[in-house]
């Protein structure tokens, strides 16, 4: 009797798959349930944002940056505003800087909530996702009161922010933080402590620190591998140097392997607490004053180029802008965190099961609009 023969089998995962977080397609070569190769096929959400940036004036590109990462629109707005401010040498008033930090960190909480909720949902636990969305909804309400939109905020402007906080808004933010801080523990009781969930993730797909750096992972994915690198600390911008917060890193939580899916998940949970801490400090010390610097109506930055990177929820987002003195940029290159996370999936998923691929994508927090742009 000859031994049982198995063939390499090609399987399509996506573009319409609930666990690929947007329209991303993977062509899997599988041996049984073991993945031999996962070929990511990107481009389904390509909108040509870099080309659009060359066609519209500097301030008019701001709404497009919302669409760069619709789960963390303010962080993207801020990155674009900061790049142009550095290019044109514009000083931002302190009140606007504080408002930017408050909104960006609120947005980081909202984005991380989606990330941890979706990972739990991918692992078969739907309830945590609903709990996370419920709390995120409260943040959306706050943003709606502030700037009138719930998802594509378009809040930052070159040289400041578009609107001042309405009366009583800071108190409502404080109320939300008081409500939400204990909710992290409730969420941990609900899913993070769950033995099945932990066992499902704690040894899966570990990324060593060297590998993470070699593949250019950024943000929570890099910190999950134990590398303490956060642009808010290491290359500070805005008013972050004046604020106190920790940078959580992965350390093999729950007897797992360093850099595993569970470490990346835990880094995000810990960052929720740090964001709350940052917002509280900002609320205590926000000064009165202007929210918008004097910017010429038709902005023509002097000839030059700038690369400016900031820490978004999915890691570093960088804008490389070349100006040749016109009212539109000559070239814009956008670097996002999900792109580098996407490149490691092929290497990372080899030898793991199809069900683990879902955990890998979920824990790397890949989001399609950031990958394709």
């Amino acid at each position, binding site marked *: 009797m000859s031994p049982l023969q198995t063939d390499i089998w090609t399987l399509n995962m996506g573009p319409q798959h609930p666990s690929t977080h947007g329209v991303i397609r993977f062509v899997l070569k599988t041996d049984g349930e073991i993945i031999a190769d996962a070929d990511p096929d990107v481009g389904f959400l390509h909108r040509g944002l870099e080309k659009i940036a060359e066609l519209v004036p500097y301030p008019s590109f701001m709404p497009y940056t919302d669409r760069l990462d619709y789960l963390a629109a303010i962080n993207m707005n801020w990155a674009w505003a900061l790049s142009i401010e550095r290019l044109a040498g514009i000083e931002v008033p302190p009140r606007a800087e504080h408002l930017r930090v408050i909104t960006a960190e609120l947005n980081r909480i909202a984005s991380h909530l989606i990330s941890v909720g979706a990972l739990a949902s991918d692992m078969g636990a739907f309830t945590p996702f609903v709990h996370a969305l*419920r709390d995120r909804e409260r943040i959306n309400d706050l943003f*709606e009161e*502030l*700037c009138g939109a719930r998802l594509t905020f378009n809040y930052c402007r070159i040289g400041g922010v578009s609107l001042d906080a309405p009366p009583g808004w800071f108190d409502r933010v404080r109320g939300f933080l008081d409500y939400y801080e204990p909710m992290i523990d409730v969420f941990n009781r609900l899913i993070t*402590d*769950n*033995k099945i969930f932990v066992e499902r993730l704690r040894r899966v797909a570990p990324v060593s620190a060297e590998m993470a750096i070699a593949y250019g992972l950024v943000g929570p994915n890099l910190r999950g591998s134990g590398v303490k690198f956060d642009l808010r600390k290491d290359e500070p911008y805005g008013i972050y140097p004046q604020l106190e917060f920790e940078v959580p890193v992965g350390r093999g939580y729950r007897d797992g392997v360093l850099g595993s899916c569970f470490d990346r998940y835990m880094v995000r949970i810990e960052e929720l607490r740090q964001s709350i801490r940052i917002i509280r400090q900002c609320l205590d010390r926000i000064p009165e004053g202007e929210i918008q610097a004097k910017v010429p*109506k038709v902005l023509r930055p002097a000839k030059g180029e700038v690369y400016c990177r900031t820490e978004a929820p999915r890691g570093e987002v960088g804008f490389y802008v070349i100006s040749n003195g016109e009212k539109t940029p000559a070239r814009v290159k956008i670097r996002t965190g999900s792109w580098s996370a996407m490149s490691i999936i092929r290497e990372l998923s080899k030898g793991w099961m199809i069900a683990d691929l879902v955990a890998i994508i979920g824990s790397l927090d890949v989001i399609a609009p950031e990958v394709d742009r």
Partner: protein
Amino acid sequence: MNYFRNIWEAISSIAQGMAVTLRQFFTKPETVQYPEVDVLNPRMPGYSGHLKPVSERFRGFLTVDTTVCISCNQCAHVCPVDCILVESEKGPKTTVNSLRPDGKESPKTRYPVQFDIHLGRCMYCGLCTEVCPTGCIHFTREFRGAAGEYHKLIHHFISPEEAERVRKLAAEEAAKPKPEKPVATKVEAEKE
């Protein structure tokens, strides 16, 4: 021993999570069945009005007060998706008061004969409302705008009769004998 401890940990941690879920049964529902429940009408049966439909600053559909519009075309210029179209005629010189709280006066010499907003293209970014010197283009809090046909998404803010009236007025103004010189240079300066 480890085997039994694992089983115990699994059961206890699941029970812990279930307790959190169980508590949700005794809280108010967070959502309503929209559109069966009309969120704009709190007296509807089965709805206690606990959801606020939209906030004060909500960015709904754009609307234009064309009597206040001075046809400066700044909204159309700043729009990233070119969804605003303004055509205007030169008419008699008047002044209009801004719709913003400060009520600032602006001179008005150009009258819009066509003001279309393509809501199928609009991305509700609000840049046009910020540059408008008179505040005539502003957001409403209306958010329900499903249309059966594509062309119904283009909102025309000036009726053909009104456009005809303005054109007649402009023709009368142009026929008037007047020292045209300073006005002509001003228009050229605007174009630049």
